[in-house]
């Protein structure tokens, strides 16, 4: 393995500094007794106390996580099939049409997606709440996951699958033993991007939710008029620290295990998911 030199290390350090700057800014002010995100007055843990005591907020956090994990997993499954579908279409025009259809939801602003899903759900008579939110999140996460998986399929040499078929592998074997292992990094990228989409979505969830079901984004955005209180900062800090511990902890756990094993495990694979 070639080592990065000082200059390239500096580049990465800078990149990470910028990526985490707003998060550290948020975390810093979650301890501000002044109650605002500017002008640090004094240290307090008041907002953390508020978070822990707020059961409604806790339920909302759990809802958010459940929706994010389930919708991303389902969306990734559909996206694998979708990427295969797009890949197997030989006709270039048909392929482009399929890709364009795939991308419609990425290009449509959230309000439009939200409003049209709301109309669809009411026509279909689906009760607004957990199911409608889950379906919508699956729906708008599929295209981004497809975009992440597709290049891996495109790069895969067709001779590989042909060879497997010639050697007598069944269709199913080709899929599970040849194709899936090759596109695995894409599948994980797709899953993580779907997770990002789901956690960040406000507008679509707002329209399709109901009967008291809420997610963190909806709650945060609707607090904007009153001013988002620092307890939301505190909550984000807790979530952030928890996630980062999970990610790092799991990474090193799997790594130690795999040292004895043959290959380096896919840390990205299961990271973030405790067993």
């Amino acid at each position, binding site marked *: 393995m070639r080592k990065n030199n000082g200059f390239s290390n500096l580049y990465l350090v800078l990149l990470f500094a910028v990526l985490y*700057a*707003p*998060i550290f800014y948020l975390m810093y002010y979650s301890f501000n007794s002044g109650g605002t995100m500017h002008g640090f007055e004094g240290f307090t843990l008041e907002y953390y106390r508020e978070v822990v005591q707020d059961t409604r907020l806790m339920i909302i956090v759990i809802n958010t996580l459940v929706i994010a994990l389930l919708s991303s997993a389902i969306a990734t499954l*559909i996206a694998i099939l*979708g990427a295969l579908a797009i890949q197997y279409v030989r006709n*270039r025009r048909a392929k482009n049409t399929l890709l364009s259809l795939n991308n419609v939801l990425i290009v449509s602003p959230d309000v439009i997606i939200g409003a049209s899903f709301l109309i669809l759900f009411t026509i279909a008579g689906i009760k607004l709440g957990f199911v409608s939110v889950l379906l919508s999140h699956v729906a708008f996460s599929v295209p981004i996951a497809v*975009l992440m998986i597709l290049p891996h399929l*495109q790069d895969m040499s067709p001779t590989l699958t042909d060879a497997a078929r010639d050697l007598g592998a069944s269709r199913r074997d080709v899929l599970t033993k040849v194709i899936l292992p090759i596109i695995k990094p894409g599948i994980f990228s797709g899953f993580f991007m779907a997770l990002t989409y789901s956690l960040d979505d406000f507008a679509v969830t707002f329209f399709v939710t109901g009967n008291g079901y809420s997610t963190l984004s909806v709650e*945060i955005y609707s607090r904007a008029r009153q001013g988002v209180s620092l307890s939301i900062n505190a909550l984000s800090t807790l979530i952030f620290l928890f996630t980062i511990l999970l990610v790092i902890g799991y990474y090193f756990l799997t790594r130690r295990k795999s040292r004895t094993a043959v290959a380096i495990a896919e840390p990205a694979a299961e*990271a973030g998911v405790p067993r």
Partner: protein
Amino acid sequence: MTNKGRSYYLIPYYLWIALFVIAPVLLILYYSLFDLDGHFTLGNYVNFFTPVYLKMTLTSFWYAFLITAFSLLVAYPAAYLLTRTKHKQLWLLLIILPTWINLLLKTYAFIGIFGTFGPVNNLFDVFGIGEQQILFTGFSFVFVSVYIFIPFMILPIFSALEELNLSLLDAARDLGASGWTTFRRVVFPLTISGVRSGCMAVFIPALSLFMITRLIAGNRVITLGTAIEQHFLVTQDWGMGSTVAVFLIAIMALFMMLTGGSRKGVQK
């Protein structure tokens, strides 16, 4: 490969397209044909070709282009360097992690950071540059947008680089190619599919950005996304909002045709 009749496992995806893509698009098309009073009209389409909307379309394009270009410029070297670090999977995860913190909160943080009395201006003061207005400029808009989209660009490029056969690089070097030549003739062409999917994942949503235009650009940048948002939520003119959306989708499809067309030339 095509083995017709046994593609039943593709059903979920086609079902998804039918229910969540085609149906909403039909709905949008339908709405775009009605005016405020609910009368059938083509007026919305005529209205789109007025200077106001054309200018907006151009602005959206220009900024989406800038955002994509800068994302690529930052992301490619980053992805390249990441593949060479020790715990690369971990670092990659750490790139994605910030995206899981609520966007509105991060944007509020950026308002604080870029503000007149924020850390960036303090830094400027230290270096004697003096106070600058960073918020509510095209620069801050592009910067924050790139910030939002950068993981979407890094991820596919990283995966593409990962699959790159290292022996190819050695071969190129053995044949006397310089670092730059190796990159231009071997590495970049082989990762072009990752670059393309990254560009798509950035450019397409960048066309319809809306919240950042208000929060960070103070409505100095008005994009098609903002217009749709306004029509749906403020004026409740779903007709015009849908019309703008129809154009947005058409533009995206056109973009797909163009980039899709060049694919064969590069790869085969």
